[in-house]
């Protein structure tokens, strides 16, 4: 280009959920600008929650995402329950974990096998990869179907489940309903171990990132619905204090808000963060799979996130089997709920990372206002920084190859643009 600037654009990012793009401006060996453009229209969920009954929050927010509706239901229902002073006892607590495991299995498996693996193996899409790597894709589909079926049973249907309510569930399964899943999840767990070995054999571009990693931490469990929000730089807070520590700001190029830790800056949520902060809470089998795959106590190469995600699928199958073995249905599917005015905040671990909800309720349980901070808007700035760190080492690549690597780097964090709007196409401008 005449002014010496090189621009690479991805006008429409494929294999991510939702609509977005990327612009990268390079002058010499310096990245001048990197922007994730999120142009999926804003969706105003927070506004449409106002004036609705708090009992509706789990089902309304489940519609935010077709791939992680349980995450929305879980953050919503726990936030509303905290506002109402409701604590859901065992075994309902266990059933919520089981439902969440089904979503992790489904979401992670789709991302690993159909969306991210083609990047590592040099295929433009899953279909062309499947012609050669037939067994791997079939294995992925089989694991995913196990998650789907469990979701359909516990959630009432595969997509946008409808069985979660404030105080518990509408209907709980009998032991006999869950019994057929034991063999299926056992096979899925073996397949997931095979997938860990498969992804661990990929070639990973070199990149080490000094992120602040943020995830839930629970006294005994690998985190799903409960725990304090902790980070690798000393954050240790309750969900009620999230907004005092995390600021959201608008940026002109995105319909998603950018989040940062007050006084510090960007941070990362998701599998890499959960693993770094909770590897000791994984099941023995998942821990061993992580060791065998060459993962240390933490993983700071974003491209290896696919390995961590695969380890989490092993864990989710393991955890689901444990929960099913222990399942004794309660006398009632929900505990009584008394409406009252109040504010409740909750964070849960969506497949893509921490998902924050806050609701302020009137005395009759009407939602006065709501706030939702999805994982992708928390990661958006970090994804831009990953690219700024990665691109200067790869400027010798052609624009097409560089574009491919950038897309892969974005998919490292499995961004869900549909969720983040209030998120992606790649343009690289070189000088």
């Amino acid at each position, binding site marked *: 280009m005449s002014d010496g600037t090189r621009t690479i654009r991805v006008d429409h990012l494929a294999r991510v959920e939702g609509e977005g793009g990327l612009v990268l401006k390079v002058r010499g060996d310096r990245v001048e600008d990197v922007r994730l453009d999120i142009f999926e229209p804003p969706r105003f969920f927070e506004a449409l929650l106002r004036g609705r009954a708090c009992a509706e929050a789990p089902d309304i927010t489940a519609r935010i995402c077709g791939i992680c509706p349980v995450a929305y239901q879980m953050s919503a229902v726990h936030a509303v329950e905290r506002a109402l002073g409701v604590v859901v006892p065992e075994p309902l607590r266990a059933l919520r974990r089981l439902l969440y495991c089904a979503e992790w299995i489904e979401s992670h498996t789709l*991302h690993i096998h159909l969306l991210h693996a083609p990047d590592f193996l040099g295929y433009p899409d899953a279909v062309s990869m499947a012609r050669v790597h037939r067994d791997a894709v079939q294995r992925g589909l089989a694991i995913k179907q196990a998650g789907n079926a469990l979701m359909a049973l516990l959630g009432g249907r595969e997509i946008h489940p409808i069985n979660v309510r404030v105080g518990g569930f509408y209907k709980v399964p009998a032991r006999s309903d869950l019994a057929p899943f034991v063999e299926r999840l056992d096979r899925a767990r073996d397949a997931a171990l095979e997938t860990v070995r498969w992804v661990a054999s990929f070639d990973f571009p070199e990149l080490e990132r000094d992120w602040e990693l943020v995830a839930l931490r629970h006294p005994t469990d690998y985190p799903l619905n409960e725990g304090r929000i902790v980070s690798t730089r000393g954050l240790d807070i309750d969900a009620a204090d999230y907004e005092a520590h995390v600021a959201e700001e608008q940026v002109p190029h995105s319909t998603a808000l950018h989040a940062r830790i007050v006084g510090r800056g960007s941070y990362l949520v998701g599998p890499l963060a959960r693993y770094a902060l909770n590897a000791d809470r994984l099941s023995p089998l998942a821990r061993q799979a992580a060791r065998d795959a060459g993962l240390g106590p933490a993983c700071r190469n974003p491209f290896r996130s696919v390995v961590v995600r695969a380890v989490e699928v092993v864990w989710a199958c393991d955890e689901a089997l444990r929960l099913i073995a222990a399942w004794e249905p309660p006398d009632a599917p929900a505990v009584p709920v008394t409406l009252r005015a109040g504010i409740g905040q909750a964070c849960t671990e969506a497949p893509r990372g921490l998902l924050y909800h806050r609701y302020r309720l009137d005395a009759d349980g009407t939602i006065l206002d709501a706030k939702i901070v999805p994982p992708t808007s928390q990661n958006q700035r970090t994804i831009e920084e990953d690219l700024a760190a990665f691109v200067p080492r790869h400027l010798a690549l052609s624009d097409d190859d560089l574009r491919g690597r950038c897309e892969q780097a974005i998919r490292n964090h499995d961004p869900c643009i549909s969720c983040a709007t209030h998120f992606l196409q790649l343009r690289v401008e070189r000088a």
Partner: protein
Amino acid sequence: MRALVIGLGQPAAGDDGVGVAVLERLRADGVPPGVELVRAVEPTALVELLAAQVPVVLIDAVASAAPGEVLELGPDELAGRGAPPYSTHGLDVERAIALARALSPRITPSLRIVGVGIARPPRRATGLSPAVAAAVPRAAERVRALVEG
């Protein structure tokens, strides 16, 4: 099993659920022996179903046709219709068929698609619009003719 009829769609997204509505109509009216009716909620489930070694009829909503229009298509005509990727993570019906073909040496010997035209579905709606509801018996008859033929 002599033939497999698959209804695709999401009833929680208004007219997008028409494939399921047609399936329910066939179930209510009865189908010839050996014809199996299956509902697929999302396209990855479709990949496995398409490996069936019997003729398959797929019923789905088509956003590029006039609301209520009933059409019959072959799998290779999908690209020409410009079916929009409503499915999560971009695995639409066309890609699901391509993936099934990539994965299996032999998929179904015959795949026909009965489509019902719909307007772009809203974010949150249940039930069919009048024009699409009126098309359900016609679409069911078209499916019946295919599996009886």
